[in-house]
């Protein structure tokens, strides 16, 4: 064996054996496989490590998990040098440059013996659980989770830094202006909770109890370890890929909410193209002077937010900051924008069989329908929680003006009596009914597509967010602040719920889910735990897929024709993400099933 690296780990090349390399016939063809073996102390195999091969600018990476024998096989690599990174909680990251094609590599990992460094390897939710322990009142705890985790993770390295009192005062004031409103009682206690939870003297021993034992960080099960994860860096360092979708053409489209661009990615070639959305609105769009600050590195005037493909292949996008609906024609690559005459902050959209676009309007408590044939909007007012809230919503435009004219400070205000309803997720039932959630009101509802009559259903859990139907017409709902997944049967009006088994329970904040209609498995965003979560209702089993990039905050899920799961990392601000770049992510859960010769051949 030949030692080829002396960086922070040891890589050996098996001299004569070369297995598992369907060689590329042309430079750049994605057919090579990088294979190898991971060992730890005493040559023990490292099971369930995330093994990533990455290269290029913008980078593209492929990640697999090591198997029970510590073997791995990273498929689909073009010829040339790749950066190899091996990551496993409890062990120090290992990195080296390796050639493809090339002989199998052997990586000897070093155990992480520094408790602080080990704790730093853990996903945000593990730290956040310590914070949640500080909050005795469950109502206050729920409020914090719902209000303070919807742009970024809580508990990641960027959010647990110590702050002085004056910094806390400014941070909480700023967050309130950006929408993270807390009651004065909660707000007053936040600095103390942070200090108590994240003090290393307290947190590190708690988080590293049992370090060095197998139980400390058990590997994912074999079914998870079959998966292959692809990541593409998309956009710049100030980009924020809020949502993505798989187009019927096979291309993947993603909206960059901070840079006003639509991206197209061809997964086969890796080719990307960006389509700017032009607007004469100021930075910040119609909210430029409303009091809510734009991110400091953003160039957003319209803020593309959610997107879906219509039956004719066109792509419709809600332009949240611009108060517009956008249509992109993939053939002509041209945009058409439709200014809304009513409501503000168009949010999540879905398209019915007739090509009509239905979308929630988060700011003004509406759902709207846009008919492309007549180019007209129909806006439906949703019920508020109370008459006073309804009055407030009705007054909001004027209050935007009042806000500029009179001394009302949003940073000093709190969540009030329940906050605003905030219509959020939306989906269309088999019978054509339009179902939506009201995040802060803790309820869902149905709109009759013909009469536009609205029915409201209280949820037995908090913060229903982005919901989806399965193939049988049952509605699946993530409970964002309740850490669960729910199924609602519109026929019986019955709810069933399952806690999401991210440990510690309650530390996960599932932002969105989607149902693979080929088998009705439910895929859930592990938004605060750098994971994707699969739930099989048939046997009520969860599988948790750890993702390779720390601070992976996900908000939407889609599937391609081969059952692969797509999402995007949209933590805001982007600089909190490991290496500071947004990525779109594809997880192939079946890559290791029969037929994957590369992986089978990987075993030496």
């Amino acid at each position, binding site marked *: 064996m030949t030692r080829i690296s002396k960086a922070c780990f040891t890589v050996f090349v098996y001299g004569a054996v070369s297995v598992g390399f369907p060689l590329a016939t042309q430079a750049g063809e994605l057919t090579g496989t990088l294979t190898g073996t991971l060992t730890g102390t005493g040559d023990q195999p490292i099971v369930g490590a995330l093994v990533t091969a990455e290269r290029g600018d913008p980078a593209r990476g492929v990640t697999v998990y090591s198997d029970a024998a510590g073997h791995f096989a990273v498929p689909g690599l073009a010829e040339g040098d790749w950066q190899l990174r091996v990551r496993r909680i409890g062990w120090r990251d290992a990195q080296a440059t390796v050639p493809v094609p090339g002989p199998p590599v052997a990586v000897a990992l070093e155990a992480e013996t520094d408790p602080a460094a080990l704790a730093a390897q853990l996903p945000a939710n593990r730290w956040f659980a310590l914070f949640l322990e500080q909050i005795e009142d469950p109502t206050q705890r729920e409020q914090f989770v719902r209000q303070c985790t919807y742009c970024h993770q809580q508990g990641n390295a*960027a959010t647990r830094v110590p702050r002085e009192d*004056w*910094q806390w005062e*400014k941070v909480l*004031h700023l967050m309130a202006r950006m*929408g*993270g*409103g807390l009651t004065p009682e909660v707000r007053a206690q936040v600095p103390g909770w942070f200090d108590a939870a994240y003090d290393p003297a307290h947190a590190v021993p708690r988080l590293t109890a049992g370090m060095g034992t197998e139980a400390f960080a058990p590997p994912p099960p074999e079914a998870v370890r079959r998966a292959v994860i692809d990541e593409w860096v998309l956009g*710049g*360092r100030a980009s924020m890929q809020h949502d993505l979708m798989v187009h019927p053409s096979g291309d993947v489209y993603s909206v960059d909410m901070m840079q006003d661009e639509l991206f197209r990615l061809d997964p086969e070639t890796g080719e990307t193209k960006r389509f700017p959305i032009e607007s004469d*609105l100021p930075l910040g769009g*119609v*909210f*430029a*002077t*409303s*009091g*809510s*600050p734009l991110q*400091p*590195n953003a160039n957003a005037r319209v803020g593309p937010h959610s997107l879906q493909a219509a039956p004719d292949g066109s792509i419709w996008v809600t332009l*949240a900051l611009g108060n517009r609906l956008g249509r992109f024609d993939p053939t002509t690559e041209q945009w058409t924008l439709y200014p809304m005459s*009513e*409501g*503000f*902050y168009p*949010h999540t959209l879905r398209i019915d069989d007739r090509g009509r676009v239905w979308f929630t309007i*988060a*700011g*003004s408590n509406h759902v709207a329908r846009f008919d492309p044939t007549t180019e007209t909007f129909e806006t439906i*007012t949703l019920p508020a929680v109370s008459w006073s809230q309804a*009055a*407030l*919503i*009705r*007054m*909001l*435009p*004027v*209050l935007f*003006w*009042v*806000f*500029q004219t*009179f001394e*009302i*400070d*949003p940073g000093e*205000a*709190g969540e*009030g009596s329940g*906050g*605003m309803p*905030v219509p959020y997720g939306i989906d269309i039932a088999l019978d054509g009914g339009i179902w939506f959630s009201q*995040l802060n009101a803790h309820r869902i509802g149905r709109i009759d597509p013909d009469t536009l009559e609205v029915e409201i259903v209280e949820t037995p859990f908090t913060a229903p967010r982005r919901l989806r139907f399965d193939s049988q017409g049952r509605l699946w709902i993530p409970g964002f602040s309740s850490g669960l997944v729910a199924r609602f049967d519109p026929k019986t009006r019955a709810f069933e719920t399952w806690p999401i088994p991210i440990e510690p329970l309650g530390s996960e904040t599932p932002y969105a889910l989607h149902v693979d209609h080929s088998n009705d498995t439910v895929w859930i965003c592990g938004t605060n735990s750098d994971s994707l979560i699969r739930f099989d209702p048939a046997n009520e089993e969860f599988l948790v897929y750890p993702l390779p990039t720390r601070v992976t905050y996900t*908000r939407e899920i889609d599937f391609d024709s081969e059952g692969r799961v797509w999402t995007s990392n949209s933590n*805001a*601000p982007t*600089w909190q993400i490991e290496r*500071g770049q947004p990525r779109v992510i594809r997880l192939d859960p079946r890559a290791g099933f029969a037929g994957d010769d590369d992986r089978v051949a990987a075993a030496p």
Partner: protein
Amino acid sequence: MIRSVAGMGSVFGSVFGSVFGSVLGLGTVLAMGVGCDDGPPAGPIVNPPAPWTHERSAAADTLIGQLRQLPPAGGVTVRLAFGPESDLDLYVTGPFEETVYYANTPSRIGGELVADQRCTASALPQATRIEEVRFPTVPGRYRVGVDYPRACGEGRDPAAFAVRVDTPADQLEHRGIAVRQVFEPIVLEFDVASPEEDNR
């Protein structure tokens, strides 16, 4: 993400029925009077920029003059000067799109908020307030933003401010007017050349 609207919702949900009831009552009357009927409200209002006046212009000139008296601190230095009537905040985004401000300091490339100013009781009533962010000399594009989160006294008028940038090769100045509760993301953008470019 629900940004602004949730923020506004928080505000109005909190203040409804409070001491601002009379203001909101006025808003209700106006809302009913602007043709809402049974429909939802129209969108938010984008206000025009605050106008320059002789007083604001003179104040900004004074602030610029005070910044000119400060020696360069080395590397890339950005200073924001403003009067005692307001609490402005300086945001400087570096070449790798990470912003240095009171909640994110230092940045990965070493940008740091050196001085922050606030509405504190100990502040001298007439003192100019100067905030400062420093970066090591890293080539690339920089962006300077200014936020006006709150007034320090009873007044809420727009506030004059001045920004001065010192780089190894250049000095830049900007005069502006900040409006309370409005963040101006770009008051100034500038490029720092690499040493190779400077030598050409």
